[in-house]
């Protein structure tokens, strides 16, 4: 277990993209990514997805860059959430779900029979649309992940919990009530707690499914700031309904429409000079 707050050397060794990549260190490069720096963390090829026979994703191929924020936008029901959930195989638990195509993370096929789903989900954390704190104490929420992965040592758990909460920007608000139930926190705090909980298992990728859609503007702004801070250490993929949000937080944006990925490019390109007419219509608010 590596301290999630810092890039420890062994994390960098495990994943070549962890912490040491160049683009994120230079914020000015952010909006005009140089293709040479594009280091794919996730490579998706010809992904088709079906729910009980109904196809919801059509031949999606896309590369997600390491240590960048990639936003998935598109109207409701366009398949962006399904796509997100296929990156940590959360769709596996849906009955009648079927998938073909390949998803490679660091070159490893996550749908190969040899892949251990449990260790995959440990590497690919997830934050859900509706915050889902467990009905336990704040401490038990954050330490849940490390505990199931075998960390027993109390002082180690204390360190992880503190580091994760600091990283999620929640520490100052909850440090005096770690033993209080997480259900008593406000909506925005609950969502940041869920982010802290995901960070506590030290993932490499963080999937966020409309993490701010149920929050007030102030809490939303906090989550967005947080995403900006986390991109340094994590590869982030965020589904959002809110195009301003996509423009604010992401480096790359993919536009989904009716189960197909219409366009994927640097966020600035998507919002200023998209190559597809559908994308232009959507980002200018002509439909959706």
């Amino acid at each position, binding site marked *: 277990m590596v301290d999630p707050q810092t890039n420890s050397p062994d994390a960098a060794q495990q994943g070549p993209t962890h912490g040491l990549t160049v683009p994120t260190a230079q914020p000015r490069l952010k909006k005009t990514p140089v293709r040479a720096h594009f280091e794919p963390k996730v490579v998706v090829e010809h992904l088709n997805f079906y729910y009980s026979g109904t196809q919801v994703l059509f031949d999606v191929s896309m590369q997600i860059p390491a240590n960048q924020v990639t936003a998935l936008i598109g109207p409701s029901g366009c398949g962006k959430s399904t796509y997100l959930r296929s990156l940590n195989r959360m769709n596996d638990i849906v*009955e009648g779900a079927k998938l073909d195509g390949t998803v490679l993370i660091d070159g490893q096929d996550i749908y190969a029979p040899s892949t251990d789903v449990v*260790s995959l989900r*440990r590497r690919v954390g997830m934050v*859900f649309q509706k915050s*889902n704190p*467990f009905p336990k104490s704040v401490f038990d929420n954050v330490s*849940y992940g490390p505990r*199931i992965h075998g960390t027993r040592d109390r002082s180690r758990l204390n360190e992880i919990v503190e580091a994760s909460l600091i990283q999620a920007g929640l520490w100052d608000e909850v440090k005096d009530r770690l033993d209080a*139930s997480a259900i008593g926190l406000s909506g925005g705090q609950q969502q940041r707690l869920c982010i802290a909980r*995901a960070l506590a298992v030290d993932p490499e990728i963080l999937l966020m499914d409309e993490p701010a859609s149920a929050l007030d503007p102030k809490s939303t702004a906090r989550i967005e700031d947080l995403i900006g801070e986390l991109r340094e250490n994590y590869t982030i993929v965020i589904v959002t309904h809110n195009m301003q949000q996509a423009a604010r937080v992401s480096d790359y944006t993919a536009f989904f429409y009716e189960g197909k990925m219409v366009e994927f490019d640097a966020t600035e390109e998507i919002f200023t000079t998209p190559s597809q007419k559908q994308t232009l219509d959507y980002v200018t608010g002509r439909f959706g």
Partner: protein
Amino acid sequence: MKKRLLQRITFIAMRGVTYFIVLVIAYILIDIAWKGLPAISWKFLFSFPSDSGFGGGILPAILGTIYLTTGTILIALPLGMASAVFLTEYAKQGYLNQSIRLAIVTLAGVPSIVFGLFGLGLFVLFCGFGVSIISGSLTLACMILPTIIVSSEEALRSVPRALREGSLALGATKWQTIRRNVLPYAVPGMMTGAILGVGRAAGETAPILFTAAVAFKMVLPASVWSDTMALPYHLYYLATQGQDVVKVRPYQYGTAFVLLALVLAINLVAILIRSHFRKKYRW
């Protein structure tokens, strides 16, 4: 105006019915307490029966019922919870699952004497356990399993899906998720089933008639392989075999009172466990 009048009449009728039920229960309880309490004494509670069971104390019957009920819960609760977990979490929802559910619900409606005869055939004779506490507990466990399974399933299903997903997304295995993030929240609901089950198990006569109970015994059961006296069976025995009605009646009421108090006490433990978990986990 007519609608409002109709509403008033309906409400009054419902209220009347509710009060009537409460009254009936209160009457039964007060009657038993009124006539049973005078029979209660240290000697009655803590000594052996005399006079072929029509006099003396009922200690062997009290202990017998405690043993039988405890045995039943120890067998039925883990089995019922395990099958509920299997049915809701692991089994494929399909035709077979539906059939199993139907079978369980049907089982809940089977008369207790049928369970008694089944227990006699399977546990007493076929398995060779004889007339014993273990045979009686197993038979009672079969009888209350449906109640426990159904209420446990209900409890498991009421745990939000988001909590399971949150746990799985952290890399927990399915079993870790169930064990740490589903079962604890389902305990209150499961306890409700256990409470209903315990009440039935402690009070039933028919299932233990051929499998565990004897009318009169001057020693305490030595092990789970011994037969035993039991409160409901003792009550049945007093009511049907007593010749001197006037002399036996206080013993009957006393025994009934003790049985009620015992069921209440066992339920109280379950209720305490339930409220503990309810307070601890709320969502």
